[in-house]
């Protein structure tokens, strides 16, 4: 006899035996939107536009596109409420107005996200068109020099080296802590978890100041890449440990038991069941933590020093990095240098976007194709 579930997996075949094949059986569309909904909406939009234009250009002493749009939206909400109230109970009026307000606010947020990305790239574009921007550093380049001289190679290399060291330190420790908290446990682990959660509240500038005081003031080490990496690590470690802990905590306990019941050791269970199961979630959490570490300016502001030349030795001499470069460039006040700052910000943003796309890619990866 056929398994019941086969029907569900192959509905056409199953149906063929039951229904006479007269015409293709398509699902019919169900719409919850009425004509009243549609007309009230369109009417309110158009009416608000007209009224807005009238108020804005003829009656009120206002100017500016932004204000025009804001007023349009407010008028639209009012008209929409009024139009709905004509033939509907108050619940429907509230429902529609709140729905429109929520959609509007959500659109505003996504618009802000869009503008922040576009604005950075548009303002950064003049600098990005120069090849030397990627291949040269700022040694001997004055802030007023044209964009055809100098570049941000030193900042890119510095960022990569600093975050590389920070990853090498925080990834094993952070993931190790999460594994300790979830797979070993014990009374002591509660202390560790509490402390890790507490330290995620540590403001990044305080992490920077901590490393600055210890390494630079107390131990007399000069501002170097390694100091910056230490500051980034102090900031990143709780973030990484916490997010890895959250990912491991939602792992179904049944899978651990199943593995142990097969005779696996705890270590094998972690390596072959726990980690593969949470792999994509873990990778996402880690990469988001790394993105945070790359983009954070305040730890490096205090610790790395801003060199103008390329320095790939983290142990000696200052080392610039992208966020720090952006920060000092836009504060200089020189238009050309600000343009460089936006160019560097575009590169930083692109780096974060790439990291982010990788997380989406990992999250979508399915089993079986390894």
């Amino acid at each position, binding site marked *: 006899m056929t*398994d*019941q*579930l086969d029907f569900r997996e192959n509905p056409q075949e199953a149906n063929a035996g039951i229904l006479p094949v007269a015409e293709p059986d398509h699902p019919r569309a169900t719409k919850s939107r009425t004509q009243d909904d549609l007309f009230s909406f369109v009417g309110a939009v158009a009416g608000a536009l007209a009224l807005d234009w009238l108020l804005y250009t003829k009656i009120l002493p206002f100017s500016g596109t932004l204000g025009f749009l804001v007023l349009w939206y407010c008028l639209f909400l009012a008209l929409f409420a009024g139009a709905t109230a004509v033939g509907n109970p108050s619940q429907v009026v509230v429902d529609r107005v709140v729905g429109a307000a929520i959609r509007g606010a959500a659109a505003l947020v996504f618009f802000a996200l869009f503008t922040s990305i576009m604005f950075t790239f548009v303002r950064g574009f003049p600098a990005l068109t120069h090849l030397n921007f990627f291949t040269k550093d700022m040694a001997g380049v004055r802030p007023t020099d044209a964009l055809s001289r100098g570049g941000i190679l030193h900042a890119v290399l510095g960022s990569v080296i600093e975050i590389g060291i920070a990853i090498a330190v925080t990834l094993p420790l952070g993931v190790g802590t999460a594994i300790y908290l979830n797979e070993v*446990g*014990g009374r002591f682990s509660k202390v560790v978890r509490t402390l890790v959660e507490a330290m995620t509240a540590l403001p990044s500038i305080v992490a920077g100041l901590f490393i600055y005081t210890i390494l630079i003031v107390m131990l007399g080490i000069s501002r170097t890449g390694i100091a910056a990496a230490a500051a980034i690590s102090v900031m990143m470690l709780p973030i990484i440990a916490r997010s890895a802990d959250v990912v491991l905590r939602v792992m*179904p306990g*049944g*899978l651990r*038991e*199943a*593995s*142990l*019941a*097969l*005779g*696996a*050791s705890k270590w*094998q*269970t972690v390596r*072959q*069941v726990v980690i*593969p*199961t949470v*792999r994509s979630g873990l990778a996402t959490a880690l990469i988001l933590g790394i993105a945070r570490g790359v983009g954070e300016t305040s730890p490096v502001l205090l610790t790395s020093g801003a060199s103008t030349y390329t320095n790939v030795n983290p142990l000696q001499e200052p080392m610039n990095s992208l966020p720090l470069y952006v920060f000092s460039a836009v504060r200089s006040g020189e238009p050309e240098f600000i343009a460089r700052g936006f160019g560097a910000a575009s590169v930083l943003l692109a780096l974060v976007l790439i990291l982010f796309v990788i997380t989406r890619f990992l999250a979508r990866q*399915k*089993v*079986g194709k390894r």
Partner: protein
Amino acid sequence: MSVLLSPATGRVTDFSGGVLSAQGVSAWFGSNKVLERVSLDMPAKTVTALIGPSGCGKSTFLRVLNRMHELVPSARLNGEVLLDGEDIYATGHRITATRKRIGMVFQKPNPFPAMSIADNVVSGLKLAGVKNWRSDRDWIIETSLTRAGLWKEVKDRLKEPGSALSGGQQQRLCIARSLAVEPEVLLMDEPCSALDPTSTRRVEETISEIREQVTVVIVTHNMQQAARVSQQCAFFLAEQGTPGGIVEVGDTEQIFQSPVDQRTADYVNGRFG
């Protein structure tokens, strides 16, 4: 004693042994005692059903039998569990080796989501560190899936993830996974409670088939299921505020038709629980 022989490598699978016996098993969670001196013999090549109302300690007892009980931090126990005459809790017995010999199937099907169907079947061999199985991989997958009654349904989709299967198929995949490490005993904790009737029947058929090779202990809330699949039946009961224990043990037929204890009679006839 039956022997399966791998055609490719001449690998021998021996189905002897598997006599399980619990001697005076008590169990605690913290200071709360949930089982009191339970003794039960589970003969080889027999399906033993553990029945009784919820909260009477059946599942705890089952978990004591392959040392899953101690995964709960506050869990403690007393007594002995003898597998072929040797106490599995005795010093010197590797916990992983014990669990490999005494497999377990859980209430909710739990195939490893990060592995394909085929990888799920051999996951136990990989996890338990069994040596020299890779040359027999295909044979092990086919034999285990066949023994679990799943081979025909999945043989063309072995590379799909285990989670793509239906609930009943997933549960049989978990049984295949347990069988692949060739346990002597298979513990099943309400394996059908999350399944529909058709899938339940398939799992029951599977249980009847593997009985020839493996000692089965099954916890179930379904009286008909206990009557259908088991040869021996133990009725657990925990009265108000006291730890659970066995009221009556006997041949399934006898427990269902002429129980000695009145409480057993009430329970199997559906008058409480």
